[in-house]
């Protein structure tokens, strides 16, 4: 299996070297290549004129992928504003900056990135795992709203260093306290104060535990490629699909084992 890991430079605590060693330990026969930011890397392969055209096209596509209402699915007919396209264009030119405050449709985003993959890197034994600081979500037909996600397993698979902070719910008390702050209009104080009060109880930006946590999400991406099923129901297994920060910490940081016995056996069978 050929595994391509794409870096996300805005998160200094994300160590792709550590993740590479972890994958090597789990899948000794795999070949791993660490690359720079996905968009930067694949745009660099194009000649200058083609790159310029592609960037303009990408900027518009990304602006279209922006979720405008949490309670409404993406409207394909919405034409983005000039300023929105300009913002995306500036971001494309500076991929090392953290994007803040915009939620993108994850499936659309994944599709946009898929369009950058060259045909010779789209074989079944080639896995592209993209770390990004963009926040993305998926539309849920059941409750008819968008939900922020940490990862989307596809070709390429996307793992968000912002999603790991924003998507899994924080402890209930966090939101109660936040309500009190915001009722007083103390938005800045809320952000700083809350993080102080709940330090350690959720994964934060540039968290020291980021690499350790992300190992599990990379493993999920690989299991998705190998078996079609990335998740496990065991709350202590790296493959557990956590929806609360406490669950993330339990399955990725305080986990008594890496993989549950069933998945350990499954991986052994796949490697034999």
């Amino acid at each position: 299996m050929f595994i391509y890991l794409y870096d996300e430079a805005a998160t200094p605590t994300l160590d792709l070297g550590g993740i590479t060693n972890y994958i090597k330990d789990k899948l000794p026969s795999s070949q791993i290549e660490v690359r720079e930011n996905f968009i930067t890397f694949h745009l660099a392969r194009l000649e200058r004129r083609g790159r310029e055209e592609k960037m303009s096209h990408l900027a518009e596509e990304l602006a279209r992928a922006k979720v405008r209402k949490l309670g409404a699915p993406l409207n394909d007919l919405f034409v983005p504003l000039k300023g929105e396209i300009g913002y995306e264009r500036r971001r494309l030119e500076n991929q090392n900056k953290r994007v803040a405050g915009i939620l993108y449709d994850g499936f659309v985003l994944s599709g946009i990135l898929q369009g950058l993959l060259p045909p010779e890197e789209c074989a079944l034994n080639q896995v592209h795992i993209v770390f990004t600081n963009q926040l993305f979500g998926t539309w849920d037909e059941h409750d008819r709203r968008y939900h922020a996600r940490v990862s989307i397993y596809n070709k390429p698979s996307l793992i968000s260093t912002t999603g790991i902070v924003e998507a899994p719910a924080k402890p209930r008390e966090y939101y109660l306290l936040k309500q009190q702050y915001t009722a007083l209009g103390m938005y800045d104080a809320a952000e700083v104060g809350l993080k102080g009060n709940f330090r350690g109880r959720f994964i934060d930006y540039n968290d020291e535990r980021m690499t350790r946590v992300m190992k599990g999400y990379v493993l999920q991406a690989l299991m998705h490629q190998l078996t079609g099923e990335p998740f496990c129901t065991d709350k202590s297994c790296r493959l557990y699909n956590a929806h609360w920060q406490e669950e993330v910490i339990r399955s990725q940081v305080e986990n008594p084992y890496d993989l549950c016995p069933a998945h350990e056996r499954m991986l052994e069978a796949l490697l034999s």
Partner: protein
Amino acid sequence: MPLFHSVAEKDVTRAIVSSFLRQFEQYADSDVIIVGAGPSGLVAGKELAARRLKVLIVERNNYLGGGFWIGGYLMNKVTLRAPAETMLDELGVPYEEAVEGLYVADGPHACSKLIAAACDAGVKFANMTIFDDIVLREGNRVAGVVVNWTPIAALPREITCVDPVALEAKVVIDATGHDACVVRRLEERGLTRTVGFGAMWVEMSEDLVVEHTGEVHPGLVVAGMAVSTTYGLPRMGPTFGAMLLSGKRAAEVVMGILEGITVA
């Protein structure tokens, strides 16, 4: 012996009228007209006037400063996140560090210093003046604003059949806060669209407001909370740090427009 010099009432009246009219006549054609004298509008005005541009700020209230006088819950302390404290340093406003990266200043002190800085730089004001419409030129470029006295808008039409007047400018800045009055007027004419407020990820929205500050339509730059309305950015997060830095960026964008270059 009276304390004050003897002056006739008619001289007081003439002084007010002639001084105001002279200024109003002069600023009927400005380099930049800023609609809204909140923190983003004041900063933009200060920066542009400091570059020797003719800047007029139109404000519908009698007072200037928008919401910069008070913080949350009518408490007059305003908070800013780093690096916005550099703006307070520039203005000479004292502040304290509440926790790492979060600064607290007195609203009245910060707001009055900002107003004074804008005045010192040469910004002129038309307060109690409400934005009514836009002036359009060839290619639908925004080339000024149509204004009226604020009280006119508050009285019944049969009492106040008063036509507005137009003021021209090379560039207009919409710094009208959540209302985004100028952009919305453009939208009513089918020349642009606003997205309305987004409702997500409050904590991270300050950066977005600054990053989206820019020319929304030829001749019209959007700054401050009006940026949120225009682009559908989260509405609650941006506080005064974003307003100040958005104003600064708006000034840079305007300078770029006037110099015929694109500010990326």
